[in-house]
């Protein structure tokens, strides 16, 4: 399959002024040439195939947004190579924009005071979408979501959920090859999250759009992504299928044992190192076991372990 995005050894450094404390420090900062370099992204290589839905994860400040900004062409990498749809994004930002769509969780690209349909028409003209394609797209939209309540509503009167939904529709309107969704479900209620997930899946399968998704909600990841990439402190630490994730960092399961005196004994077990049966046997010798429960560890817990683990190292 064709690659939508290729990143080779991409690094991004930022120069920041060393700020000093207090009033005296602030005055000194006015004239200071004392910069320090911060590496936001370190040597990240990545290949994303056309039509994939990728979960791009990492704790806050890991370098996710920086990577996305480099892929969209708003930032230029300090070193390394990025090719998006065969273009170098920062060199041909305007041309690259024709083939990508973006949704940044808490900002909207819609025209605030106008009804949604007007924003759609405007985007249609700005992206020069042919009439037929535009109409087909609106038809597809109405088959996926209930457009009626939002289409003629001014964006400023929308709820956060409706607005996010509208922003996602707007990002897909010109049928881009790649859509970047930066925390699209932030602040939404459970049912809206479900709606948005099924919309993204629907659009991805209908239009074969590549979707790069950053999120802190593991529900999004479980529902949408087959492959995930985890980045921490600018370095890629995981890049594989979501099924592998659980075994990659040890195949963890939680064992719950109810003992004769009705107390619960819980233990998180790494099956690659410990044998569950052995633990049960040892326990049984101490006391009679009344009940046994074995739980799969959730994606959320694995991710938490990874974030915490890499923070400690």
């Amino acid at each position, binding site marked *: 399959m064709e690659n939508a995005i290729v990143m080779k050894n991409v690094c991004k450094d*930022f120069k920041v002024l060393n700020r000093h404390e207090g009033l005296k420090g602030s005055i000194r900062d006015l004239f200071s040439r004392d910069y320090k370099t911060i590496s936001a992204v370190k040597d990240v290589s990545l290949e994303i195939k056309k039509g994939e839905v990728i979960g791009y994860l990492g704790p806050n400040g890991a370098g996710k947004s920086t990577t996305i900004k480099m892929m969209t062409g*708003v930032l*230029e990498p300090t070193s390394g190579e990025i090719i998006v749809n065969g273009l170098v994004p920062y060199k041909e930002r305007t041309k690259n924009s024709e083939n990508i769509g973006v949704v940044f969780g808490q900002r909207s690209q819609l025209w605030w005071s106008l009804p949604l349909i007007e924003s759609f028409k405007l985007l249609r*003209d*700005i992206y*020069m979408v042919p009439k037929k394609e535009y109409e087909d797209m609106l038809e597809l939209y109405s088959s996926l979501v209930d457009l009626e309540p939002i289409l003629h509503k001014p964006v400023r009167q929308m709820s956060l959920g409706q607005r996010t939904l509208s922003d996602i529709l707007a990002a897909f309107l010109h049928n881009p090859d790649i859509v970047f969704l930066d925390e699209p479900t932030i602040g939404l209620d459970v049912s809206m999250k479900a709606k948005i997930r099924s919309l993204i899946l629907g659009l991805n399968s209908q239009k074969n759009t590549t979707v790069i998704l950053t999120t802190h909600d593991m529900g999004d990841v479980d529902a949408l992504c087959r492959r995930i990439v985890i980045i921490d402190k600018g370095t890629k630490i995981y890049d594989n299928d979501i099924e592998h994730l659980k075994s990659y960092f040890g195949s963890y399961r939680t064992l719950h044992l109810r003992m004769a005196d009705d107390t619960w004994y819980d233990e998180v077990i790494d099956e690659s190192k410990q044998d569950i049966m052995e633990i049960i046997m040892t326990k049984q010798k101490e006391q009679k076991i009344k009940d046994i429960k074995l739980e799969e560890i959730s994606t959320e817990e694995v991710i938490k372990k990874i974030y915490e683990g890499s923070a400690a190292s």
Partner: protein
Amino acid sequence: MNPKRLIALTRAGIMESLQFRLGTAVTLFANLIYLVLVYYLWKAIYDSAGTDTVNGMTFTDTMIYLILATALFNFLEMFVVWDMSRSIQSGKIVLDLLKPMNFRRYTFWSYSGSHVVLFALSFLPTFIVVMIVTHGAIHMGINLIWFIIATVLALIVNFNIEMIVATLCLYTESTWGINIVKETIVLLLSGASIPIAFFPERARDIVEYLPFRAIYDVPLTVLLQKGGSDELSGLLPLLGLQAVWAISLFAIGTAFWNYSVRKITVNGG
């Protein structure tokens, strides 16, 4: 450049401005108060001067000039600097940078709609009222066409000045001060608050060649057929001045913007 995009942006701008009916009404009311103030201020000046004409302008001349300057100001005023600094702080500028259009062109045409609305709702009514009240102090002829051309050039000069200041906002985190300085300079040196004829001679010699004059003074001079602009020999230098500034400010603005955006993409914003 695709005209469909530009028309679409203008259309949306018109619809957006029409949403703020109350805002437009309040602006018109505020202008009325301002004009009453201007009226009494200049009346006092003329009364104490003891002559009918000061610096070659009669009281009526001055009033027509200042009223039309205010109307023109309402119509040409742009908020590029405010809007841009806000979108830089909120990070929304990234979304605008990711439109498949040249950013400066996109910005300019996003404002064109509001100019159309303000021209119809603010400038035209004022102009008609002045015309009726002064019974023919404004000549109705070819000068109207020259005035429209001069106004379009004024719009371009104004946009480019705004855009250059807005680009400065990419570097500084506080915009407020810079913007106030810009506004004061433009209002004073463009003839919007005091007719340039009233400037001391030395100052006038300099101000005559600055770009600010191209925004308010030149269109009004052309409209009122002052300074020999009723003849081509007087008119062309004025329009020429505007054109030269429009082109050079456009070139400076484009170069400055492209340089700055590159810097931002290197260092991060």
